[in-house]
Every structure is written in C-alpha cells, then in structure tokens.
C-alpha cells in the first residue's frame, strides 16, 4: 500500500480500490475464523482456488477469506455474493459443484442450504437464516465483508473515514461530547460511560497519556473480542486512533491473550499496513497527529483483564491489582494518565462518528445504547456469536436466534458475565438484556458470555466450577479473595460430594459478604456472584444435595448411579467398548448391565449410546 499523506489522498485511494472492483462480479466468501478453521475451511479455500484455476475463472470470480461470521457451529461457512447465498458445512468436494452450478448457472444447491430445524424449510439467503435474522450486526457484520489481512478491504467499506473526519473537522472536546452523547458504555464488564472516561483522562495532568485496548478476554466461554480482532482489526485500531486523538495520547497498547494466535497475527499485520501507509506514525494525514500502537501478549492470567493488573503486566510485572483510590485515568501505566477500553468498545467508536449520535441512540434501551455481541454457547441449538440490540429479551436470544434447547432438554438457566456474573433462571427469561437489568437480577453483562444451561446442568456444580476457576485465578494477594474463594470452593465441593451440612448455605452467604466487601479488586469483589445467584434462584437444588444427598441434574458423581434401561438397550456393545473400568457386561443380543461397584461414573457410555439407554439417577 502506498503512503496516504492527507485526507484527499485517502479518498482517492478509496475511489481507486472501489473503481478496480466490480460490485456485480461474483465473489466466494469463505469464513476463516477459528471455528471454521476447526472444521477445515483451509482445505475448502484451497479447493476453490484450484477449481477456479483449473476452469480458468480466476479473472471472473473473486475469492475472499474473511473473519468469523458468528455461526461457527455450522462451519465451514461459504457465502456467494452478490446474491448472498448461504452454504453451510461445505467440504472440499463441494467446491466444483458450487462453481459450476451456483456461480456459473445461478442454480442453488439444496443440500448445502441451511434447513430450518422446526419447519424443515430450506433457507437460501444469509439474512433469512433465523440465527442471523434476529440479529443487528452493525459491528460484527463487516467481518463477513472483508479479508482482515487486507487494509484495502477495510478502506473499501469506508474504513478510516471517521478518523479522517475527526482529524479534519472536530476538536478533541467535540469528539468527547459525541461519545458522551452517544451513551456508549464499556463493553468489557463494568459498563462505564466511555466518553466520561475519555474526558477524565484528557483532563488529567501529565506529559504523556496512554490508550490501551483490553483484548485479554478472560471470561472462559466468551470469544467475541477474539473474533473482532481476528476478523476486523482495523475497526478496533481506528477506534483507538480516534480515542487517542480525543484524549491527547501518542502511544497505545493492545494487550491480547496469548491463546489467540490468529488475533495476534492479524492485528500485527494490520498495524504494519498502517505504518506503511502512514496512518500510524508521525503527522497522520498531515494533521499533526502522532500515534503508534504496540501489541503485547498476555500470559494466561484472568486477573490481568483487571485494569491495574493489566497495566502491571504491561510494565513487565506479575499481574497484581493495586488499590484504585487514585484512578488509572489519572495514574495508570507508568503512573501516567491512561485510558483503557475493551475491544468491542473501541470498535463502536468509528461507527458512532460515521452514523451520528441520533442514529446510534435509537438503538438500545434508556441507559444502554447500541448493540452487544454475545457468545451464545452451551446447551443451545445454534451456538456462535450474536450481535443484538440492547434490550432484547433472553427468550428471543435463546429461542429465536439460538433455536432453543437441543434434544428434549429444558431451558433451566443462562449464565452471563462469566466468573463475575451469575445464573439467571427460567422465570426471568423475559427480562430485557442491558447493563442495569442484568445487575439487578444478580448477574452482570460482563464481556458478553451467555452460557445456556438445561435440566442436565447442575447449579451447585456450576457454582463449584466458577469457584475452582476463581481460587486459581485470584492473584492470591488478599486473604479474603485467596483463602475466601478456596474455603467457598471446599464448602461447595463437599456439598457436591454429599458431605454438605446444615448451615453450609448460611456460612457461604456470610463468607460471600466478606469476600465481596473486603477484597481489593473487582475479581474478589464479584467472586461470590456465581454462588449467591445460584443460591438465590436454586436453593432447592442445594438442599437436595445437602439434605437428600441427591443431585437432581444427575451430574455430581458421588451422588449418582448409572444403569441401563433394558427396554432401550439394543446390546450393540458400544458402551462396553468405551467403558474404561470394565464395568459393563453383556453378551450379544442381551441387554447390558453396569456394575455400580466398578463404575467410575465417567459418562463415556452416555455419550456413546445411540439409543439413550443409559440412565442416571
């Protein structure tokens, strides 16, 4: 990419790119996000390329490998443009046919279409697939339109227009006003108003100001930040640049999880391209604005998502939080004023500048504007990333977009907010999802994890899971957090083993109060949420474990036995083969039997049995 010296040149480059592209020329778009990778999209891409070469069609048909489209479950995903024909589960064997039929003859290949699970209807266009239909993909939608490693693609869809506009037309306080008026709240957890944070940071005295992008995405079960950074890194970078200009910063950092190699790679490529064309560096677009960005890889510590721990880690120390009596906007990285925002928060910024405050504030609820990307996973039919307007109900997300609960399972709860959040029960399925409502019901928006749980999910086990996570991920400094979460874990663990006692629930509540009130950082302060919310909504289940020594969901190993339903068993012998402790016996044609003494309740037989014959009680 050649150097872009000023706003006029940026527009010229954009025209050139658009001029060289024929919008009506067919384009094969192949999702190459992490999910589709796992389904082998690389081979599909290779095969498409080979086919096009073979048929000498390279000139007539574009190929574009993009970031994640969100519907990972059905990967590899292929969209044929401009018609937007949506093919799922595409294999390398299908590519020849797709070119011959769909691209050359405009015929639809039925077999590759998405089938509506309830109506059985075949759906042709991406936007009509129920998973996408209920969404509002203003941030995430561009992932499907661009190759994240090509800055030209981003410029072609209007990239860096917002940056150019603010540098030319707006003063920093004007930008801050726009962000404040847009009502944009931080997407990383707390929901703090972004514009207010920017303003405090701008006004904080100091020679040097820093901006940071928090891409540590510690919530286990959420991956929207990964997909944004992987699939559209320039949108995040443009947001950071606008923020830096508004705040008066010339140095930025991106702190990204080491477990996300593709995100690290793609954002690195994007930064190199920006430096090459002069959009990062000195005197950007001839406006006197200087800015550069460094990428730091995290080391796999949840607590490093916390702002002060993240900054300690950037300074090359262990990620231990410090007291925030003086805020990081005044004294953050290297004790200089520092503004930290989440990946998705940054990605909202160019959109707000381009589309305007009125447009943006039309979306969402009173105090939560815009959209939010959720990672809809767990026991739900359509898993993947969904971007929805704030204020949508949980029911719409789970049933309309998510397609409901698989098999004959029943919706039981939805966990939001990760380890700092809580479980929301079925009785609250019609609440409108926004920052305040989720907090009100004892959970949190968090970074946007949404884990659907069905009747086979044990809520006590869920609490135990998070406590185990937190006791390991606490930095270990505070007595209350370090020993408090460990003691809570021990108590809940005992309950799941049938060793719970009368009074345990009260002790858990007492401990919870102290852990949340007396710990230093938000990790400890929110650590009791998973326990408190499950106690609040699922007391029965705790009591079943404590009093009746029973796990109603059939999960807690020490409280269940496995047996085989004679009626259902076809004596196929599969379970016998997978059982690691030789607990299953049975001859051919005779229903099999589980020896409960030998059975270690590993569950291998359940997943293997095609006839649903294994029973848990």
């Amino acid at each position: 990419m050649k150097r872009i010296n000023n706003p006029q040149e940026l527009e010229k480059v954009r025209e050139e790119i658009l001029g060289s592209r024929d919008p009506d020329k067919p384009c094969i778009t192949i999702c190459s996000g992490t999910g589709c990778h796992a389904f082998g999209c690389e081979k599909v891409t290779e095969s498409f390329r080979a086919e096009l070469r073979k048929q000498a069609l390279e000139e007539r048909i574009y190929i574009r490998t993009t970031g994640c489209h969100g519907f990972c479950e059905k990967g590899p995903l292929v969209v044929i443009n401009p018609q937007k024909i949506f093919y799922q589960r595409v294999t390398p064997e299908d590519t020849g046919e797709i070119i011959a039929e769909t691209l050359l003859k405009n015929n639809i290949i039925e077999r590759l279409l998405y089938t509506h699970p309830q109506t059985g209807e075949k759906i042709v266009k991406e936007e009509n697939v129920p998973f996408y239909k209920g969404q509002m993909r203003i941030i995430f939608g561009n992932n499907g339109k661009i190759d994240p490693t090509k800055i030209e693609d981003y410029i072609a869809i209007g990239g860096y227009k917002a940056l150019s506009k603010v540098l030319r037309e707006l003063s920093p306080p004007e930008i801050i006003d726009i962000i404040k008026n847009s009502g944009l709240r931080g997407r990383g957890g707390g929901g703090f108003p972004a514009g207010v944070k920017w303003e405090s940071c701008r006004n904080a005295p100091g020679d040097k100001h820093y901006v940071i992008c928090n891409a540590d995405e510690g919530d286990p079960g959420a991956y929207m930040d990964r997909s944004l950074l992987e699939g559209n890194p320039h949108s995040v970078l443009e947001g950071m640049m606008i923020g830096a200009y508004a705040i008066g910063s010339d140095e930025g950092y991106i702190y990204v999880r080491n477990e996300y190699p593709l995100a690290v790679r793609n954002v690195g490529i994007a930064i190199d391209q920006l430096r090459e064309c002069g959009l990062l560096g000195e005197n950007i677009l001839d406006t006197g604005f200087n800015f550069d960005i460094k990428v730091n890889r995290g080391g796999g510590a949840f607590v490093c998502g916390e702002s002060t721990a993240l900054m300690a880690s950037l300074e090359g120390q262990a990620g231990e939080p410090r007291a925030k009596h003086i805020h990081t906007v005044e004294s953050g990285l290297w004790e200089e004023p520092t503004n930290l925002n989440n990946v998705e928060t940054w990605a909202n910024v160019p959109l707000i500048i381009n589309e305007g405050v009125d447009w943006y504030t039309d979306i969402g609820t009173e105090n939560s504007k815009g959209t939010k990307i959720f990672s809809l996973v767990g026991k739900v039919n359509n898993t993947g990333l969904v971007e929805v307007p704030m204020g949508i109900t949980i029911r719409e997300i789970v049933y309309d977009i998510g397609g409901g609960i698989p098999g004959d399972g029943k919706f039981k709860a939805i966990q939001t907010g990760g380890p700092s959040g809580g479980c929301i029960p079925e009785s609250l399925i019609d609440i409108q999802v926004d920052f305040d409502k989720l907090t009100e019901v004892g959970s949190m928006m968090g970074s946007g994890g949404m884990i659907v749980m069905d009747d086979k999910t044990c809520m006590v086990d869920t609490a135990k899971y998070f406590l185990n996570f937190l006791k390991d991920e606490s930095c270990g400094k505070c007595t209350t957090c370090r020993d408090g979460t460990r003691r809570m874990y021990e108590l809940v663990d005992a309950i799941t083993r049938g060793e719970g006692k009368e009074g345990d629930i009260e002790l858990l509540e007492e401990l919870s109060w102290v852990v949340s009130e007396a710990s230093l950082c938000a990790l400890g302060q929110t650590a009791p949420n998973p326990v408190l919310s499950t106690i609040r909504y699922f007391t029965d289940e705790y009591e079943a474990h404590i009093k009746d020594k029973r796990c109603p969901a059939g999960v807690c190993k020490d409280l269940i036995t496995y047996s085989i339903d004679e009626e259902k068993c076809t004596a196929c012998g599969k379970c016998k083969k997978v059982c690691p402790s030789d607990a299953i016996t049975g001859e051919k044609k005779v229903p099999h039997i589980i020896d409960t003494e030998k059975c270690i309740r590993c569950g291998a037989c359940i997943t293997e049995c095609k006839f649903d014959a294994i029973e848990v009680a």
Partner: protein
Amino acid sequence: MITFTIDGFEVEGEKGQNVLQVALDNGFDIPHLCYHEALKPYGACRLCQVEVTKGGRTRLTTSCNYPVLEGISVQTNTEKTTRARKMVIELLLARCPGVPIIKDLAKEYSVGEPRFKVDNDDCILCGLCERVCREVVGVDAITFLGRGSDRKVGPPLEINPKTCIACGACVYICPTNCIKLEETESERTIVRWERTLPMKKCKACGRSFAPWFQLEYFGKITDGIPADFWDKCVDCR
C-alpha cells in the same frame, strides 16, 4: 496539612500518608498484619478495615493503602468493620492455627474454632519479608511464587537464594515468627530459606560478627568507606 476525622476526632496528616499511619500515630487501634511504616503499603491481609465517608458515600476499605484526603471521615470500629475483621481472622486462623499473633487476635475478636478445614501453615502471606528484602535491603532474595490459593513466598529456586546476605531483616519483620535464624561460631543460617553463609571474624576482637558475603555486599553498595571498615565488628569500629 490535610485535616480529616477519625471516629469523630479531628486529625492531621500529610500528603502521601495513609489513613492507618495517621490513626496509629494518634493512638487509634486498628489491627493490621501486612503494614510496616518503613515499607510501601501493600493491602494484603485485609484486616485494617475501616469505613470511610467521602463525598456523602460511605464504604468499607483497608486503611493502610487509603490516602489521607481533606474532609473525609473515618470510622475504625463499626458493625461492618468488625464483621469483616472477624472473618479475616477466622480465615487466617484456619490457615495458621498455631501462630500466636493470630490466636491472640482470635481471642480479642471472640473468634472461636474456625468453621473451615484447618491447615497447618505458619505463613500468612503478608509479604513483609519480601518487601523488606526488596525495598530496604535491596537484594531481592525472596519473592512471591505462584498465584491464587497456591501462592507462597520463598527464594526463586525454593531454597538457597544466591543474593541473600543473611542479614535477618525478614526474620525480624515476620509477624508470625516463622523465619528462624541460627548462628554458630562459623556460620549463619536463615532456616526457612535454607541459606547458610560463613561468618567473618573481627580483626580487632576476634569475635565472628557477620557473614562474609554480607560485608562484601555492603562494601559494594557504599561509597567512600575504606575497605578495612568492614573488617571490624560494630563494637570495634
């Protein structure tokens, strides 16, 4: 000067001071385990809880790392501070049931048998040893290792820290007395860190007075002091 109140009494502090320091100087009793005036406040033990009212909002917070601010009002003894301190003590007692200072606190706050599984540790992870070694002695011989409930404190390779000069600062500062120093005519050992250093004898009186390695270190970090200064013990210098 910064003026604020503690339990209704007006007190004064200086910029950079913390609430705990000012409270202690004025004779208020706030229990604390990880604070020492010679070291940077760390805020790990969570015992020094107070309630601070600032701008109309009252919240529970540790006093050791709360900066003194004009006009705040601090309560050192409320229902909430007691509730928090009692649980902190119970947690520490379950961790270190044999440590006298914890047992005394438990008695003072009427904390009975811990309701948790009892361990048999002797370190409360206050970090005083680690900080004194780094901030005052300057040799960084010991550190925190691990994180979460596996955190511990010790030398990088678990034993015999190579930069340790066996000065005994950690021994002196440890509130639980779990770091022991043993000395013979020829050697000094910091037992917990398994560090043993040979002793130097005083050129004048012949008594062994400090580890060779420690004196070499002092020689290195000080300027303008004649080398033979370190050959004699404190009494003979």
